[in-house]
């Protein structure tokens, strides 16, 4: 097997994989370098050597938007939404998997049905509802719907069925534990790996969500990070200094890059798990 031809072929294949990896990383590298260069420098050509205009770009950018406020707002939406999604999806999934009650099947079927329905179908009705309830410019319609996440419930229901032994619950009942206490003390800890997997996905989805906050939030004070970034399109004084635009994008991207270094293993296993739903 270890002929020269085999080794050369294998070398070429690795080279191609590395080139593809560089293509994935290059835009981020250019972004970081360009955010340290002045608008004039950027017009003269590209380079891989950072320049010294980071501070000017920073000042110009923050005169226009306060991205840290956007980040704070995004956290204010994404953290509670993720917690609600994790907790209520688990308790719902547990009830659907382990209890026999009227309507169990119906809830499950409607749940699966809504996994297939594209979001744009409810967009107008959703906005209409928020208007009626006076929830425009409020975070409530961005957070509370996380209580009912069909995809997460579906996944966790399978998870409970695969990992939880009914005998364990029976034993706890004989010991006289209440149903809610059983869920909190025994079931939830067992579900934690599955919940963590789904929560990472939920957090990223909430953090990056654009269309829903775009239609609901028009007060600049309340805008989440993606909506705030999108307002750079209208910033004509910034358009003359691309360095500031690059910096704005960089500030929005860097927290994700850093957290990815720590969580990549979990994130990737969550995607794999989502794919093997069959």
């Amino acid at each position, binding site marked *: 097997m270890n002929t020269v031809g085999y080794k050369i072929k294998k070398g070429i294949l690795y080279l191609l994989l590395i080139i593809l990896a560089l293509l994935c990383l290059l835009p981020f590298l250019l972004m970081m370098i360009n955010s340290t260069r002045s608008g004039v420098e950027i017009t003269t050509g590209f380079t891989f050597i950072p320049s010294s205009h980071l501070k000017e770009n920073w000042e110009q950018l923050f005169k226009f938007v306060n991205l840290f406020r956007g980040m704070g707002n995004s956290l204010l939406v994404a953290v509670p939404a993720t917690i609600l999604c994790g907790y209520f999806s688990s308790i719902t999934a547990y009830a659907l998997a382990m209890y026999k009650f009227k309507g169990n099947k119906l809830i499950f079927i409607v749940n699966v049905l809504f996994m297939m329905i594209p979001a744009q179908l*409810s967009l107008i009705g959703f906005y209409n509802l928020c208007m009626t309830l006076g929830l425009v410019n409020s975070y409530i319609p961005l957070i509370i719907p996380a209580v009912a996440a069909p995809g997460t419930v579906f996944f966790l229901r399978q998870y409970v069925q695969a990992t939880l032994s009914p005998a364990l619950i029976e034993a706890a009942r004989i010991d006289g534990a209440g149903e809610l206490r059983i869920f909190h003390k025994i079931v939830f800890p067992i579900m934690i790996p599955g919940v963590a997997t789904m929560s990472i996905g939920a957090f990223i989805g909430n953090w990056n969500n654009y269309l829903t906050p775009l239609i609901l939030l028009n007060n600049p004070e309340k805008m989440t990070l993606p909506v705030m970034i999108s307002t*750079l399109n209208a910033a004509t004084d910034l358009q003359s200094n691309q360095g500031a635009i690059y910096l704005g994008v960089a500030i929005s*991207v860097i927290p994700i890059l850093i957290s990815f270094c720590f969580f990549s293993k979990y994130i990737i296993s969550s995607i794999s798990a989502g794919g093997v739903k069959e």
Partner: protein
Amino acid sequence: MAKNQVMTKSKQRNRNNVAYLFVLPFVVVFLIFSVYPVLRTLYLSFTSYKGFGDPVWLGLDNYKRVLTDKFFWRAFGNTLKIWGVNIIVQLGLAFLLTILFSDIKYKMRGLPIFRAIYYLPNLIACTSVAFLFKTLLDWKYGSVNQMLISAGITSTQINWLGDVNIAPYVISIVGAWMWFGNSFIVLMAGVQGISTDYFEAAAIDGCGRWTRFFKITIPLLKPILLYTCITSLIGGLQLFDLPYLMNGPQGGTAGQPNGVLQTAVMYLYKFGFETRQTGYASAIAYTLFIIILIVSIIQFKWLGKED
């Protein structure tokens, strides 16, 4: 034991009643924020609702208008074109990588690190990716043209986002750049679920790499392939963020140049949230849904059929 069984019946009923309490928050929120908006959109699609006042019943008029609205069909065609090229590149790349990393002859290493790097662009918010590429692809000062010129690949600047013949494919490629890592992970997870015994037995029987691929990998991957195709279609027909932000100097629903970047959901957004023809926008949403439904059923039948 006997005493236990007498008690069980009534206890069990009580116990199962607790389950109603457990699912209650889910059901209430689900009805308010998922079911109601979908039904409300359906109702509004039959009315002339303009965002205020009482909706006036129009029957099927809005749907008749959608079917004959050539701008809707243009936007729909644009979406298909952008999505079609995107999915070919994205799934093609993901498939090639899957074949390579599951090859029993080459036994490529480093899967975790490559997979992580390829997946990275997925995590970045679409808005940030849109701005990053809009700036990098700027025809005058963008780094991409500067690199191509200094490498001698082209002598004049390419107007990536301003040329009607190039711009749609630029969006497709940026989308593929963002999402191929996700498709790769999903497909790879599927292949790793297939026992290597199959491949080794087939190799001993003298089957080549491509025979193994078409006779073992593809048939066993069918459920995941179906899942990937349907989710990508649902996602693809909803394409909004990238073209909305990357078109024209300031983004928006016009889909410049010349409307070639106007996707179906941008068109919906224009009526729903800019010109406030809410009823008409609702009919657009349902027309799109019906199209997605029909195509999904066809995909199910086609990919799901037994050989």
